[in-house]
């Protein structure tokens, strides 16, 4: 075999490898486009429909580009959702419980990750219990519990009890004690994140005479920023979009946004939003505008923070 032959065969091999790479990237691109279609189509549909005017909504020639833009859908949805008030309520719930959950869950996660104390196994079992027991099971008793809330009998010594129903406290107070919406998962995220951090820095802080809580606040918290961002975003999104608990604890006039959205089509019908034929079908733009208004705040937040979020997810080390 001559040197030239050898060279040729190597060249062919390199070519083959390159062709394979190109084929893979083309396949990958096609696949990504398909998945993006699945994810973006409903969102685009929602946005476009909510800007359609009542006249063009039933025009079969209008598919994607509306013939005339109108704000009717948005206006109707804002009115029927009682948007500003219910969004304000949802915002209070979301921000309050997120702040509370960040503190309580980070403390609990650190306590589990770095200390060996008697009964730690039991605490772990309790934590898993809070993750696994579906909140729906407990609704019938938590409803009564929150109606006459007394901190496990503590307040009733003084003959007091709080009515947490219909107020943001029904979410914020449990979150302060790591017992709020999906807080078990947050504790778990903090636990595995703190567990993955190196011991050496803590040891150094201890030798330098830094107390346990000071070490936690000034050394460990800054190192666990990705976990904080991850939990922050999850907590905001899950509180904003929670339906089950919100619908259970809020039954009066003022309700969180998602509960209002669920009832929107009924409210529209009762509110006299119907066209000449009286069909609900033409209410589509109001419904879509309502959906858009509901999801817009977390979506906008995500668009601006997605870089930090995606990076944090990768660095959190969810799995300990």
């Amino acid at each position, binding site marked *: 075999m001559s040197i030239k032959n050898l060279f040729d065969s190597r060249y062919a091999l390199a070519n083959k490898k390159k062709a394979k790479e190109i084929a893979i990237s083309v396949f990958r691109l096609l696949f990504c486009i398909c998945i993006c279609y699945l994810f973006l189509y409903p969102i685009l549909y929602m946005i476009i429909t909510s800007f359609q005017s009542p006249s063009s909504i039933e025009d079969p020639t209008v598919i994607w580009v509306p013939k005339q833009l109108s704000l009717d859908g948005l206006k109707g949805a804002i009115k029927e959702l009682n948007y500003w008030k219910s969004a304000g309520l949802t915002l209070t719930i979301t921000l309050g419980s997120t702040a509370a959950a960040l503190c309580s869950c980070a403390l609990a996660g650190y306590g589990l990750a770095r200390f060996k104390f008697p009964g730690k196994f039991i605490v772990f079992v309790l934590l898993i219990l809070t993750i696994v027991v579906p909140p729906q099971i407990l609704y019938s008793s938590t409803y009564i519990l929150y109606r006459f809330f007394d901190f496990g009998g503590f307040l009733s010594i003084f003959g007091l009890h709080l009515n947490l129903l219909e107020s943001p406290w029904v979410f914020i107070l449990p979150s302060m004690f790591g017992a709020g919406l999906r807080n078990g998962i947050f504790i778990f995220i903090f636990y595995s994140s703190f567990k993955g951090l190196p011991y050496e820095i803590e040891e150094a802080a201890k030798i330098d005479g830094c107390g346990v809580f000071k070490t936690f606040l000034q050394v460990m918290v800054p190192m666990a920023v990705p976990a904080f961002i991850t939990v922050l975003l999850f907590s905001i999104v899950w509180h904003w979009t929670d*339906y089950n608990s919100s619908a259970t604890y809020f039954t009066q006039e003022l309700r969180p946004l998602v509960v209002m*959205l669920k009832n929107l089509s009924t409210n529209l019908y009762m509110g006299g939003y119907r066209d000449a034929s009286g069909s609900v079908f033409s209410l589509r733009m109001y419904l879509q505008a309502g959906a858009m208004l509901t999801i817009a705040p977390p979506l906008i937040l995500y668009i601006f923070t997605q870089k930090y979020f995606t990076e944090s997810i990768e660095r959190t080390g969810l799995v300990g």
Partner: protein
Amino acid sequence: MKKRKLSRLSVSDRHNLNGLLFLLPFLIGFLCFYLEPIIQSITFSFSDVTVSLSGYDTVPVGLKNYKFIFKEDAAFNTRVMLDFTNLLWKTPVIIVLSLFLAILINQKFPGRIFIRAVFFLPVIFSAGIVLQIIQSDLVVSSMSSGNSLIEDGGGVANQSMGLNQLLLQAGIQEKIVEFVTKITNNFFSLIWNSGIQMLIFLSGLQSIPGSLYEAASVEGASSWESFCKITVPMLVPTLLLNTIYTIVDSYSSTSNSVMALITSSINTAKYGRATAMAWVYFVLIGLILGVVFFVSTRTKKSSRA
């Protein structure tokens, strides 16, 4: 007395007791917000509950509620069976799908920042309600596919007849064909439900040290080999977490028919029966979780040995 006892403890013991201080809020929270409702709902399940304006009354009735749901309530039994079959086929499909997506966006290619941002959208839309509204509308407006985002719609059977026929005529077993068409029919819902799982896998993938792959490629391993011998074994704990998450998440979904039944029983003031149903359902799910946990710890041990 107490002081002396504390001073007798070693330095490290005293340090470790601080852990309990860190966990104090959680423990108080568990006592106040979980323990009481859990005990209460167990007693509810063994009694007749009547709620009045001033409070509630419970009359213990023994196993009556449980007897009712097992012997007389046909809806509960059929719905639990349906839910379990759904869980059995959906969980593995969601896991495989989300693993695939995670591997895809873990690669480096042009435009991946955009793709990644789009793939994370299901996490933001975790609300079933918003999707439901968009979805119900899409079906009405397009009438093209019965693909229901939220539930396995009734009108789905017709639309995949083509694929069904094709696969059957190709001589593939009927059960496999059924499975494949089930996946394609629900692909939309499956992929919108695998957002969090994808995130968990992504973070698991990132935690695998790159040096392992380098060593493998130096040794001449193909990418498929390094996937089977490095990625999959390293992802076992992630897999466990994801399986548990998927199962736990299945009962928070709005399409869960068992939970819908329980909620409607609560709304019609049948608290005792509702809690009995809920506990039966939870124990069954707990058994599945236990099996998953047991199997995965076994494989972990054997892979380490």
